[in-house]
C-alpha cells in the first residue's frame, strides 16, 4: 500500500491555506479489519491526511528544499466517527511559518460539518544532519506526494489557459 492519504487538492494558496479531499472507499484494505462490518476510518490515518495536506503546504513554501517532518500534534479532537462511503475534506491553514518550523491549524469536514480539528507542528530537519542520515534525496517529498501537487498545478494552469490545455 502506498502511504498517500489524500486524493487530490481542491485549493492551494501558497504559504497560507490548502484544501484536499479524501474519499473513503470500502475497497481500502484497512476497512476489512477496522472494523469487520463497521468500516471506521482510523483517526490516526485522518491525522496523517491532515499532516500530508499541511506538510505539503509548509514544504511548498520553501519550494520543497527543506525536509518537513511532523514534530508534534499538540491538539486533536474527533467529533464523530467517519465511515467508508463518506467524503472527507481536509483543510490546513498556516498559523506560523518560520525557518525553524511551522504550526498548522487543521479541520476535517463532511458535508459541511466539522468532524475533526487538530493543530499540527512541523519541524525542518537540519540540512547537514539529514544529509548524513538520509543522503541528498528529499525522502519527505518524494515522487508521490509531489505528484499530487503537480497535478494541482497543472489543473490551475489549464484553468488559466483553457485553449492551450485542450
Amino acid at each position, binding site marked *: 500500500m502506498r502511504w498517500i492519504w489524500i486524493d487530490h487538492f481542491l485549493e492551494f494558496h501558497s504559504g497560507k491555506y490548502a484544501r484536499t479531499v479524501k474519499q473513503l472507499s470500502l475497497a481500502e484494505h484497512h476497512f476489512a479489519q477496522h472494523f469487520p462490518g463497521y468500516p471506521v476510518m482510523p483517526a490516526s490515518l485522518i491525522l496523517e491526511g491532515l499532516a500530508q495536506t499541511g506538510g505539503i503546504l509548509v514544504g511548498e513554501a520553501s519550494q520543497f528544499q527543506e525536509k518537513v517532518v511532523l*514534530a*508534534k500534534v*499538540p*491538539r486533536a479532537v474527533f467529533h464523530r466517527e467517519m465511515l467508508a462511503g463518506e467524503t472527507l475534506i481536509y483543510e490546513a491553514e498556516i*498559523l*506560523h511559518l*518560520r*525557518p*525553524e*518550523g511551522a*504550526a498548522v491549524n487543521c479541520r476535517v469536514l463532511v458535508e459541511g460539518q466539522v468532524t475533526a480539528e487538530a493543530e499540527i*507542528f512541523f*519541524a525542518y530537519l537540519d540540512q547537514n544532519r539529514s544529509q548524513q542520515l538520509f543522503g541528498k534525496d528529499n525522502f519527505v517529498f518524494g515522487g508521490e506526494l509531489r505528484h499530487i501537487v503537480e497535478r494541482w498545478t497543472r489543473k490551475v494552469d489549464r484553468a488559466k489557459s483553457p485553449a492551450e490545455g485542450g
Partner: protein
Amino acid sequence: MPTQEEIYSKVSATLVEALNVDEEDIKPTSTLQGDLGAESIDFLDIVFRLEREFGIKIPRGELFPESIFQGDPDFVANGRVTPKGLEELRAKMPFADLTQFEKNPDVNKLSDLFTVDLITRYLHNKLSK
C-alpha cells in the same frame, strides 16, 4: 500593559496547551525541561503560542538562545561555563536570574535557567518597552 500576574497566568495557560501538563503542576520556579517535561521542539511551540497570545514577535534565539554554548571553547571549558560565558549569558538573557547558576556554573544545569518565571520576566521586559 498587563501586570506581572496577568502575564504569569497567560504563560501558565500557554504551557498547559504546549506541554499538555496540568495547571496545578505549574509553579513560578518550575523548570521547563526538568519539571514540565519540555523537549526541544516544544520550545518553538511555546514561542509560537506566546506570539499569538501576546500579539508580539519573538525573534529566533531571543527567549531561548540556543547557539551560545554550541562548541565555543571561550564560553565553556571542562563542562563549566567560563566567566566570559557568564558575561555572554547576562548580555543575551538580561531577564534570567543567574544568582544560583553563577555559584556552580555546570553546563548541564543551564536548562534549569529556563523556568516559568523566566518567561514571565522576559515578557514583562518586552511588553514594557
